[in-house]
């Protein structure tokens, strides 16, 4: 499958480009010393819903410590891919390897234990539980002491600390998205997957969410990001894949894709440039 993918790599100097274009906190990422180790390897993944193939054999890699993004229109199969990786959907074919372990035969519980967490689309916080209880739920499978990690997520999201005992349903949309991310971090994953974190948020809040994503990544977290907001996603990502009707049609570094004419036309709005 992957040989069909058009690689749009044109220049070798992509890392420099990305760093110069990155926002605050982005530039200090380890340019050298990237382990280059592939953390997640998806090979020929298929997902189907009652005969309809939503994902038709896609392959991509997520290297350790990087931000990788899947962009594409509605129904391209992005969310299905994430759901299959975390075991919420059974893969109809292909393999998913994480840290050397094969995930397709595992249940969600085991996959989460293996170090992958999903921040689901539409935030999906537990509205009647307090912020604190939501965070405790994120760490549900952990039996060890949580206080250090609570400190950590509260330092990342000071707003959540202020709203410690408030029911999550009373938070604003942006705060709920922060809580969803914080909750996922509480499982202390090796890789965090985010499904449309900018969905339904005001532009300024989207900016905040992406700042947080970059900050978490700077601290060493591997991130797989699914977005319709291609502009923001590609700016933040080290590597991007474009999905169309269940297939990966383009791939490249975030910057390359952002400047690619086809991508611009389809997702970024050509008239702007």
């Amino acid at each position: 499958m992957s040989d069909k993918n058009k690689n749009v790599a044109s220049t070798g100097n992509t890392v420099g480009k990305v760093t110069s274009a990155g926002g605050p906190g982005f530039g200090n990422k380890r340019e050298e010393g990237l382990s280059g180790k592939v953390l997640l390897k998806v090979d020929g993944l298929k997902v189907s819903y009652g005969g309809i193939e939503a994902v038709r054999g896609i392959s991509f890699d997520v290297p350790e410590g990087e931000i990788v993004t899947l962009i594409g229109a509605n129904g391209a199969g992005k969310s299905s891919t994430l759901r299959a990786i975390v075991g919420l959907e059974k893969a109809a074919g292909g393999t998913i390897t994480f840290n050397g372990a094969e995930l397709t035969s595992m249940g969600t519980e085991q996959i989460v234990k293996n170090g992958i967490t999903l921040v689901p689309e539409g935030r999906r916080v537990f509205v009647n539980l307090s912020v604190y209880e939501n965070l405790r739920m994120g760490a549900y499978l952990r039996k060890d002491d949580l206080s250090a990690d609570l400190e950590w997520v509260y330092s990342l999201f000071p707003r959540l600390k202020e709203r410690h005992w408030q029911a999550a349903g009373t938070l604003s949309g942006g705060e709920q998205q922060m809580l969803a991310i914080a909750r996922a971090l509480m499982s202390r994953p090796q890789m965090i997957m985010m499904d449309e974190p900018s969905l339904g948020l005001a532009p300024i809040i989207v900016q905040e969410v992406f700042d947080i994503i970059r900050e978490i990544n700077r601290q060493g977290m591997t991130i797989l990001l699914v977005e319709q907001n291609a502009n923001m996603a590609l700016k933040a990502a080290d590597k991007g894949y474009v999905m169309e009707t269940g297939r990966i049609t383009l791939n490249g570094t975030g910057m390359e894709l952002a400047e690619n004419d086809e991508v611009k036309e389809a997702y970024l709005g050509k008239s702007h440039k």
Partner: protein
Amino acid sequence: MTKKTDSIFAIVLLAVAFALVALLDRVLPATGIIMTVLKKGCIYSLVAVSMNLLNGFTGLFSLGQAGFMLIGGYTYAILTIPPADRASVYQYFDGGIIQFAIPFWAGLIAAGLVAAFLAWLIGLPVLRLKSDYLAIATLGFAEIMRAIFQWDKLGPLTNGSNMLRKYPSFSTLMFPFAVAVICIGLIVLLINSSYGRAFKAIRDDEVAAEAMGINLAHHKRMSFCISSFFAGVGGALLAMFQTTIQAQAFKSNMTYEILLIVVIGGLGSVTGSVLATFLFYAASEWWLRFLDSPLTIGSFQVPLLRSGFRKVVFSVVIMAIVLFARQGIMGDHEFSIAGLMRLFRRKGKEASANE
């Protein structure tokens, strides 16, 4: 701090309640209307809280409560009738097939265990259903149970459609009160544990809960079995209270009544369920009784007051509650002394601010 004071208050409150119950047992006639209301209140509080655990805390809309009470009540009765009395109870079935009896406390536990076991069995297929479908399936299960327990072929075990009697029962209020306190206490401990939090997470958002690594099937089944266990114990208490038990009485009406109590008290509030149970039975058995008897003032016969009118008024009250106070008495909050004091303090502050 508040948590500590809260639990101290709770202990004091419980001690006072126990003392009060002991006192009531001494001064009130054992079969008076107040005693009936209080005993029924204790028994149904337990059942209502067990239903709330499932419907209010785990978000599984199940209507099988009467079925599990039936199983619990029958298990208790079948296992505790003294062998000497079996010949007269099972007179049409040659004294039945069971010729031993276990002590009443073991019977209560067995009632819960058998109910929980059956819940586990039907939980395997039924819990894959969602919302209304789950309600229909569990309601159907309860009806099937009612039919099975009346089945003639099972007569040697269940006495067919004849009633079971002569098993040990209680006469004091203290007994159902103590059992209810212990059981509800266990449920509260469960709700406040990390399992309880997982139940609430499943209620709020199944997909997110699953993504957090919560095993949905396992947790739902656990909640279902535990809820059924306590419904079974409640059924056994009811059997003891009535001194006779007949499957005929465990109709879906009983489940609806309990569901009403849970809704009136507030889905997701244990104290709400308990409060609502006592209010419900006080109203239906006591305060609204006068509506059922014709009343003549002078030569004027007050219209509408006749047998059955109580149910009409009651239904209207319930409709009003469901329409205008959907949150119930407590919403999903719990009654606590500290909460009450906070409320007063806030009121006081507002008052002083207005001056």
